[in-house]
């Protein structure tokens, strides 16, 4: 056990059991999976992506490239989770990934031995021929060998939420700068959100032994959080990673229940936040970066800052005996903390020769050997056992099981780049510092490249107060708490040239120093080319650790400075975000709202089978016992309507109420035909064009009274037509006195159709005389009451071609109306009919619908040329007059019958002249809609044919290359039933 006897912010009274690769271990409350594994001496935790090299825990945060594990099992299995951020819970199951048959013995590790052949772009260079083999052979094999974790076995059983938050100031990170910023703005009264990705507030303060106001950093954090909690204007968000800066808003992921085995009932697993702040203080801290030397990826090599975290925060010694390899003072302080806690440090190797006496004195006091101007050149052991050092006076071997590595600190500038801002190179700290930030963002503390604790506290307070002042709050710069003003003294050092072994730049993608040099040699010297050629920075950690070193090496081999070579840019997200979080509740049937029609429950009772129609759920047909196929049911429903009577819910039609003295004039401008002459109590069919001359929609509009009108649109175009009308009114003709409102949801509408429709209707209206043949002729409308006083509108219109009415009542009465109609129609043997029967009847009648209003057809193509008024201007009129629309060769609407009446037409076929080859040049048009007509006893269709109505009586072929059919068809007028309209006027 490497757990220290005391110290850390873990609760030793709360042990937690967990498994890793099916072996049981124990950790404590407050551990991460990584700290608990280290406490149990588990050093080998994963295999690398390409070479399957054994890997250990490298960091203690979200930058971790090595310790990627699968968490949980079955449908909850989550691959590629960083053990360093996974909060330990009782019963946690974790498994290593990308290894076979086991983590300790991985057969694919042979790739590592072959690494001299597996350099940059090896796959592209080697597996070139034959071309077909890439897809079938090489790529699958490579994908098997190089990989990450496995996805879950089943659909995610947990749910995910989305939420919005607004604030004056968003503070990202709760280290010294973030806490002071939040305090300063919170005290001034600004609405503050403090977001921390860890499960505990404090940032680096949790990991360092120092003093603030003569007290421990932990005590300072506790006081600061207590004060922030006392403000009603401050919201503290823990386990919340702000992952992206977008336009005016920030994306954040709150891991609500990732730290328990199963979320509590009704609790989401994760919550995706959209935070809309007025100002942002980015206090994201800085990150210890690796040094590139041979074997720097061996389990046992760890960042010095991470080792310090494991010792101070988690009470774990990452190694029994360590060496240190660094270029800065912070690593020395980490070594002192480890040594003082009982994890002995044998030697500190520092590339600098001018380390301050204050620092070297600390080593002397502890009896730690110092090797200044030295370098680690290689490591050995399955997990680390031997470190070989170039001391400046020759090579020396150190026998240690831990190596604390630190290449200095890089500010976490990631979120500053999300609007395209480029970080700039700061020579004094040899690191990128924030450049142009997103609007409203300032950066505070270590993220600016200011590393001393005293400076971070002061900078945070200043930036927080400044943001509050900027928003009009009165806030003076706070007096920062007293703290150490320690130096970092970091000196640029990236790469141990003397190293012979594999020296890694990007641990997760197995990119080595040699690969960077090779890329340059082969001409890929731009940073962007380097990235694509070597995959540097392309893994799930997005180059958090490796990018700067890779850039520095490229600069060196190409003889340029780092700023000349380029910058590292970062895009969202800062850490990976599960797709489930983006989906939120919009999954499966909840992908979008389900809109049942008002009579839905009744239709269900009647055995209706439902289908999605646009945004609605509509009854498709109502099967009876003994009807084996859909067509049996549909045929029965159609014939029932044609012979007797049927009802259907048509509430899904778009409904728009218009009022005002200028509605007639307005409609004249949006419909091709004239409406201003329509008399009150009358309905008229109208066609609307887009401004480019193509038909947009059709429907009926009723003049209820002098200045009240009711329009219907097709179900599919309801929203679009309303938006179009509003555009026409608000933008084009605001001078017209017109008011309009969408009332699609407000009115339920049931159609009654068939020769006995009037009898049924008279059974539901309160005043039967109001709907008599004389009182309500075809295309008439009446406002009346039904079912004993329910306000209703009755329109005598017909889509089926039969005597038909549509009865509209306030939506809450829709179901009752449907039941009343069914009851009133029982004597007439009424049937409910569905969308399928409706579609059959509209084709029999030659009414155009979606397949004909397909965004390519003009009014003339559809046979509406004579409807179009020549006495007025309307939307689309001018461009509908273009030459192409007047071309006599333009296909127009016709009816189709198979010559052999037993043959079945299918929509999608193309028309060809008899004997013509099926070529584009011979194409005469297409079959847009087809159906079996139970009324006629054969298949019928509608289509668009060159020559249109002039071809009636001619024979063509309906050729369908997809389905391999070629059927002789006879051209007829596009109306198969009652062309004179006797029935609907009956």
């Amino acid at each position, binding site marked *: 056990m490497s757990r220290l006897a005391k110290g850390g912010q873990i609760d030793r009274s709360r042990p937690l059991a967990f498994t890793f690769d099916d072996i049981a271990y124990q950790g404590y409350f407050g551990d991460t999976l990584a700290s608990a594994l280290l406490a149990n001496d588990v050093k080998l935790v994963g295999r690398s992506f390409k070479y399957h090299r054994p890997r250990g825990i490298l960091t203690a945060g979200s930058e971790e490239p090595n310790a990627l594990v699968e968490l949980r099992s079955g449908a909850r299995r989550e691959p590629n989770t960083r053990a360093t951020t996974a909060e330990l819970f009782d019963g946690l199951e974790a498994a290593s990934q990308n290894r076979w048959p086991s983590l300790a013995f991985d057969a694919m590790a042979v790739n590592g031995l072959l690494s001299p052949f597996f350099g940059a772009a090896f796959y592209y260079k080697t597996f070139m021929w034959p071309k077909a083999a890439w897809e079938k052979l090489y790529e699958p094999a490579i994908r098997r060998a190089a990989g990450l974790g496995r996805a879950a076995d089943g659909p995610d059983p947990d749910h995910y939420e989305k939420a919005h938050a607004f604030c004056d100031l968003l503070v990202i990170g709760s280290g010294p700068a973030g806490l002071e910023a939040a305090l300063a703005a919170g005290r001034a009264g600004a609405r503050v959100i403090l977001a921390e990705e860890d499960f505990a507030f404090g940032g680096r303060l949790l990991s360092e032994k120092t003093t603030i106001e003569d007290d421990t950093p932990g005590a300072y954090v506790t006081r600061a959080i207590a004060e922030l909690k006392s403000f009603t204007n401050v919201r503290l968000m823990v386990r919340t990673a702000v992952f992206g800066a977008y336009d005016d808003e920030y994306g954040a992921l709150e891991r609500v229940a990732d730290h328990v085995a199963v979320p509590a009932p009704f609790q989401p697993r994760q919550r995706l936040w959209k935070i809309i702040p007025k100002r942002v203080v980015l206090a994201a801290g800085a990150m210890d970066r690796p040094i590139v030397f041979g074997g720097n990826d061996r389990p046992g090599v760890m960042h010095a800052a991470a080792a310090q975290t494991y010792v101070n925060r988690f009470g774990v010694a990452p190694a029994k005996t360590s060496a240190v390899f660094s270029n800065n003072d912070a690593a020395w302080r980490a070594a002192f903390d480890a040594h003082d806690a009982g994890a002995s440090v044998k030697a500190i190797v520092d590339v600098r020769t001018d380390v301050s006496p204050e620092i070297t004195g600390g080593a002397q006091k502890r009896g730690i050997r110092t090797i200044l101007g030295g370098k680690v050149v290689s490591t050995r052991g399955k997990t680390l056992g031997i470190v070989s050092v170039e001391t400046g006076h020759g090579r020396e071997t150190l026998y240690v099981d831990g190596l604390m590595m630190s290449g200095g600190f890089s500010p976490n500038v990631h979120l500053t780049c999300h609007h395209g801002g480029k970080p700039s190179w700061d020579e004094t700290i040899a690191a990128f510092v924030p450049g142009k930030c997103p609007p409203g963002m300032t950066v505070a503390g270590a993220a600016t490249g200011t590393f001393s604790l005293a400076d971070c506290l002061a900078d945070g307070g200043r930036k927080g107060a400044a943001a509050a002042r900027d928003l009009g709050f009165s806030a003076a710069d706070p007096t920062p708490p007293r703290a150490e003003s320690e130096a970092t003294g970091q000196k640029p050092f990236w790469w141990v040239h003397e190293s012979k072994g594999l020296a890694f730049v990007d641990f997760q993608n197995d990119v080595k120093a040699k690969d960077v040099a090779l890329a340059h040699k082969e001409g890929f010297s731009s940073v962007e080319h380097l990235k694509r050629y070597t995959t540097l920075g392309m893994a799930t950690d997005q180059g958090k650790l490796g990018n700067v070193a890779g850039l520095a090496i490229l600069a060196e081999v190409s003889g340029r400075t780092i700023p000349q070579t380029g910058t590292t840019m970062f895009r969202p997200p800062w850490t990976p975000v599960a797709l489930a979080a983006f989906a939120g509740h919009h999954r499966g049937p909840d992908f979008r709202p389900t809109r049942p029609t008002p009579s839905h429950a009744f239709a269900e009772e009647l055995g209706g089978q439902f289908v999605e129609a646009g945004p609605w759920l509509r009854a498709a047909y109502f099967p009876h016992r003994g009807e084996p196929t859909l067509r049996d049911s549909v045929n029965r429903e159609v014939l029932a309507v044609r012979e007797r009577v049927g009802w259907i819910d048509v509430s899904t039609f778009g409904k728009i109420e218009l009022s005002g003295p200028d509605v007639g004039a307005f409609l004249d401008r949006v419909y091709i035909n004239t409406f201003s002459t329509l008399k009150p109590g009358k309905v008229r069919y109208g066609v609307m064009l887009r*401004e*480019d001359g193509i038909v947009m929609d059709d429907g009926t509009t009723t003049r209820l009274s002098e200045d009240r009108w009711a329009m219907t649109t097709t179900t599919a175009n309801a929203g679009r037509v309303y938006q179009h009308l509003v*555009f026409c009114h*608000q*933008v*084009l003709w*605001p001078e017209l006195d017109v008011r309009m409102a969408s009332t699609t949801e407000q009115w339920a509408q049931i159609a009654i159709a068939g020769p006995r429709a009037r009898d049924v209707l008279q059974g539901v209206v309160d005043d039967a005389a109001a709907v008599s043949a004389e009182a309500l002729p075809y295309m008439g409308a009446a406002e009346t009451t039904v079912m004993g006083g329910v306000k209703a509108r009755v329109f005598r219109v017909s889509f089926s071609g039969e005597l038909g009415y549509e009865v509209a009542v306030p939506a809450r009465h829709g179901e009752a109306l449907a039941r009343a109609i069914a009851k009133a129609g029982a004597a007439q043997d009424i049937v409910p009919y569905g969308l399928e029967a409706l579609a059959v009847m509209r084709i029999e009648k030659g009414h155009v619908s979606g397949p004909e209003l397909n965004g390519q057809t003009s009014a003339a193509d559809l046979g509406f040329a004579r409807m179009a008024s020549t006495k007025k201007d309307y939307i689309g*009129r*001018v461009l509908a007059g273009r030459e192409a629309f007047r071309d006599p060769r333009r296909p127009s609407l016709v009816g189709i019958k198979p010559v052999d009446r037993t043959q079945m037409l299918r929509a999608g076929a193309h028309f060809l002249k008899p004997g013509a080859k099926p070529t584009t040049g011979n194409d005469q048009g297409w079959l847009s809609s087809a159906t079996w007509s139970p009324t006629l006893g054969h298949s019928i269709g509608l289509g668009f044919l060159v020559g249109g109505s002039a071809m009636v009586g001619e024979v063509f072929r309906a050729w369908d290359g997809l389905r391999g059919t070629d059927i002789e068809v006879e051209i007829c007028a596009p109306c198969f039933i009652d062309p004179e309209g006797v029935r609907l006027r009956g």
Partner: protein
Amino acid sequence: MRIPCPYCGPRDAHEFSYLGDATGTRPKNPSAPDAILAFHDYVYPRGNPAGSHRELWYHTNGCRRWVEVSRNTLTHEITGARFAGASIPDASVPDASVSDASEKEAVS
């Protein structure tokens, strides 16, 4: 992205539908001999400016007002928003000549 709707205040861009270029004006004389050309210019050609742009947004899930938004296509910065439609008096935009300017643009 947040759009400052002149009616509802700053609202999430997801509440709006985008139409596009607001600089075109529907030709006033559909009987003019060159009406087809004029309508063609109104319906089809679009500038694709890298920088400031005037565009039409419809506040679908809000007040259902068409809004003319001035937006920088490079930075997404929104510098202004007003009710679309020339003759609606709009106190929030001091420069009432915007619609006149757009007519000039359409002519030139």
